[in-house]
């Protein structure tokens, strides 16, 4: 417990430094925030227009499809906020500077994963949460208090799964120095969950559940809040996350054992 409190304090320090760095050039921050808002609004308008005509998509009405999109945006922003550090990991490996982190009394994955939480994602998260809650309550998409609790539990599960994937990618980076494309593949695959994943062919749904579990990350929490989730799916979601987390730690330790500190 004491260790967790210590790590949270260190994370807050890391985040504070990262925020100072991100806000050092206000102009860049403004451009990034404008971009995030424009992307959100254009997708929103597009979905609204299309769903106003088509009325339903894979059995979901317009409000439900927009709800899936909002849950996707929320979880995506949360995962990006926490784990943005992986985008900064490659230079540490290539230069050999990662040695300096390994000497510190911290878990080896801490700096690569949590070292650069993105304040700009946090800034966009606040209005997004307000809008999400307003949208859920005004459209009566909230099925009950039990489902709300389950939603938050599965949201936590998604963050754990996001962590597992980012840890795996860092492991690949240690072994091959390749990270950018893998992260972008993750981003591209997860973007498939902007829409309810039920719209895809069955074999694609299987891929999105068991390979890179996009369904568990985004669709399952959304369905939980709508009260559309069976207990089997809840068990499967936690099981898959647990397996991914275990596998990622195993792989990370294997990758670390192969770390040669080549450039230092």
């Amino acid at each position, binding site marked *: 417990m004491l260790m967790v409190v210590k790590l949270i304090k260190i994370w807050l320090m890391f985040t504070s430094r990262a925020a100072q760095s991100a806000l050092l*050039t206000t*102009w*860049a*921050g403004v*451009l*990034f925030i*404008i*971009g995030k808002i*424009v*992307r959100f609004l*254009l997708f929103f*308008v*597009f979905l609204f*227009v*299309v769903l106003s*005509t*088509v009325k339903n*998509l*894979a059995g979901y009405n317009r409000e439900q499809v927009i709800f899936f999109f909002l849950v996707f945006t929320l979880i995506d922003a949360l995962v990006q906020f926490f784990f943005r550090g992986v985008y900064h990991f490659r230079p540490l490996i290539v230069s050999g500077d990662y040695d300096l982190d390994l000497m510190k009394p911290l878990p080896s994955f801490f700096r690569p994963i949590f070292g650069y939480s993105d304040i700009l994602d946090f800034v966009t998260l606040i209005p997004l949460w307000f809008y999400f809650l307003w949208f859920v309550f005004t459209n009566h998409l909230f099925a009950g208090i039990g489902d709300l609790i389950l939603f938050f539990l599965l949201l936590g599960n998604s963050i754990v799964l996001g962590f597992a994937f980012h840890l795996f990618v860092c492991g690949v980076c240690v072994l*091959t120095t*390749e990270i950018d*494309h*893998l992260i*972008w*593949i993750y981003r*591209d*695959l997860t*973007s*498939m969950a902007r*829409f309810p994943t039920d*719209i*895809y*062919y069955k074999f*694609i749904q299987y891929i999105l559940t068991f390979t890179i579990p996009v369904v568990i990350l985004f669709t399952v929490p959304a369905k939980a809040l709508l009260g559309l989730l069976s207990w089997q799916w809840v068990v499967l979601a936690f099981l898959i996350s647990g397996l991914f987390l275990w596998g990622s730690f195993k792989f990370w330790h294997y990758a670390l054992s192969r770390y040669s500190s080549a450039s230092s």
Partner: protein
Amino acid sequence: MKKYLQLAKITFEEYLVYRLNFYLWRFRSFIVFLTLLFFWLAIYGDRTEFLGYQKAQMITYVIGIAFLRTIVLGSRSADLGPQIRSGELTKLLLKPIKTIHFWFTRDVVDKGLNLFFTIIEILAIVWLLKLSFYLPYHLTTYFSFAVLSLMAIFLYFFLSFTLSVVAFWTEEIWATRWLFGVIFLEFLAGAFFPLDVLPSWLTKIIYLTPFPYLVFFPMKIWLEQLNSGEIIMAIFICLIWLIFFWWLAVFLWRKGAKNYGAYGG
């Protein structure tokens, strides 16, 4: 000309050295293509027509996006910005080679190589899913499509070059490129969905920007949804944007090159 052919050969060999990067990039492009395709297939379901597009036309639009993303939006000139900031540009300036020609040559190789794989991927998906594809009836359509696509290639090159050259004055090259060269570009070019499904007041605003001439209008021509007057107008407006960005890119390059401090070089 010989030195640019040599440059093209070197650029091609670079891709063969960093094969994993290239394969991963192709995989990413393929996912984007599949996501759009499956989304629209789900929207159509058993419908034959939606928002003014026949099912075959929408599938063709999505395939067209994959094709035009490769030949128009595929580019290496984005690397110029970081080279200016790092001072690496100096190496290029010392060589008897024109910078704009250098980057355009690299762009052409990038487009050519990616086009080869894009065509294979598209053909595989069309064959596997037995997709119906819209082929224009008139020969003039193919000609107009080719003309506008060619202009779009140059328009995007000068637009991208302009965004890179901004690096002479600011360190915020990634933020600028991300906003104008990724978010605005992909949405406003129609690289996600046809722009005319949006409310008409919004499309009118978007038509005032250079972006729709990169993907949306070439595809509208291919789908034969524009009459001759509208095609000529689209080509004419694209030409104006092309001349403007050509002038802007050259002007900013000359200004910037005088300003260049070769930091870190």
